């Protein structure tokens, strides 16, 4: 594989954004995802290859380490930031259709809940896995999910909650979404949740971490 693309994977995995970024300390002074993506495009590497073989494996690697408890939220945030920086350079190719997304994923924290860290991590990881992500933010009501699903009808939906008090609000959102869009796959996640609760409220999949959501979504795409 191309050396630039290989280095890009490492930069994403370890959250090296650009040459100026002091993180990670072991890569201080080296070029990062920003410069390497530009270099790869200038070298004529296909943007789809940059995404498929450079960025996505990097996010997969850090996502796996996060699932295994080997890295924590700050390291995931740095990786996602490096990924976002690289994606800026690929954006024109997404818009022209030269690079295709795997699908669209609508995500938000359920109404009544203002926490966004878990939701952000899932959004960033799913985007890093090649999906278009529509992030509705926090305190999202059923109507907003429904309106957005109307605009992106074949999307999957992710709903997050951090509190035992707000997880109960997921049930009405799932019910409303399923009534109008019975085929839409709904993923739920958040600290107080589990698979049993997911089943109880009629959602399709509970993921305890971002990587689980990616695996489920990628599997949907392959079905």
């Amino acid at each position, binding site marked *: 594989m191309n050396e630039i693309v290989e280095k890009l994977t490492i930069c994403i995995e370890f959250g090296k954004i650009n040459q100026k970024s002091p993180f990670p300390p072991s890569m201080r002074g080296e070029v990062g995802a920003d410069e390497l993506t530009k270099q790869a495009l200038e070298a004529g590497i296909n943007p789809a290859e940059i995404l498929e073989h450079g960025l996505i494996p990097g996010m997969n690697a850090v996502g796996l380490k996060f699932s295994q408890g080997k890295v924590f939220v700050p390291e995931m945030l*740095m990786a996602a930031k490096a990924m976002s920086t690289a994606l800026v350079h690929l954006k024109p190719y997404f818009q022209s259709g030269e690079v295709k997304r795997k699908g669209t994923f609508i995500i938000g924290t359920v109404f009544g809940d203002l926490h966004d860290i878990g939701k952000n991590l899932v959004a960033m990881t799913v985007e890093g896995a090649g999906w278009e992500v529509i992030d509705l933010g926090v305190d999202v009501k059923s109507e907003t999910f429904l309106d957005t699903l109307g605009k992106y009808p074949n999307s999957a939906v992710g709903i997050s909650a951090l509190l035992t008090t707000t997880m109960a609000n997921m049930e009405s959102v799932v019910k409303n979404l399923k009534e109008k869009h019975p085929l839409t796959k709904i993923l739920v996640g958040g600290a107080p949740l589990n698979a049993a609760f997911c089943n109880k409220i009629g959602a399709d999949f509970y993921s305890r971490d971002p990587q689980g959501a990616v695996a489920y979504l990628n599997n949907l795409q392959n079905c």
Partner: protein
Amino acid sequence: MNKKQQFDKLLSGELHSIVLFKPILMHFAARFNKTTYGKLASDYKVLVESNIRCMEYFDLDTVSLISDPYRETSAFGARIEFIPEGVPKCLNIVIQNEDDAKKLAIPDIYHCERTRDRISGAGHFQKLLKGTVPVGGWIEGPLAEACDLAGVSEMLINLMCDPDYSNLIMDKCMIVAREFAKAQINEGCDYIGIGDAICSQIDADTYDLYVKDRHKELVDHIHSLGAKAKLHICGNINHLLPSIGCLNLDIIDLDWQVEIQEARKILGNNVVIKGNINPVLIQETSTQHLESLANELVQQMHGQKFILSGGCEIGVYTPIANLMKLADISRKTKTN
């Protein structure tokens, strides 16, 4: 022996055979007292009354001033909106950049309405309970407060990229934390809970680099003022336990993800472990199942310094019968 004497004996190691009971109650306490979370968080009299009603009904062994994360944030200048049936909402990010952090003034906690309200709550508890029940104060830990002021993602990225900026923010949070703890102790708090929820989301090296010494400083400060110190970090802190073991805490809250016996081995026998049934289970499962889980936990912790509790806040929809079952299990150890 009243509850205060019982609490003191548990902490000093004189009582090993009993299990005290003190779940974290906020929204639940408000609803139990037929009021709203918004009122509980904004009016110390409502908070105190709700806590005392719960204490009397469920035979709780301490009362607490915990309400929400934004007392100190409000003192630093954030605008807070009270939601009737939800956690108060912080409407603005106080620190957007390094310049904001440098200019951020240290607030007078007696002047700010929200911090003054909690201080008044400490005094009100003492006035009503007359020293017979331990009163717990509450402060935000330095990283949690820094996240409240600067935004969670932004602050966690700062930890990775900008140590000076991170330290500047947390140093200012520490000044307020120390003052706020002192004010609550002066008004009669017997112990102070330090809430630093976000710490479960950072690795042990980052905790050691930025937070551990600050936690130790707060614990020492609280001890120097004659009170006991408790640490509460939501979530899985298995990876932080060796560092937390060096803090000289009196009480540690353990959330349900922590393996409690392993934690005891790492933390030693001096600290009171408080926990750690999954609050979702307390809310969702049958009373019989909960009884079995709680009995198993109490048996595991037999002869140790232990307070029975949920791993984190009790959900607002928790059946009264379930909480009462936990109270019964604790009560049984006191009468045997």
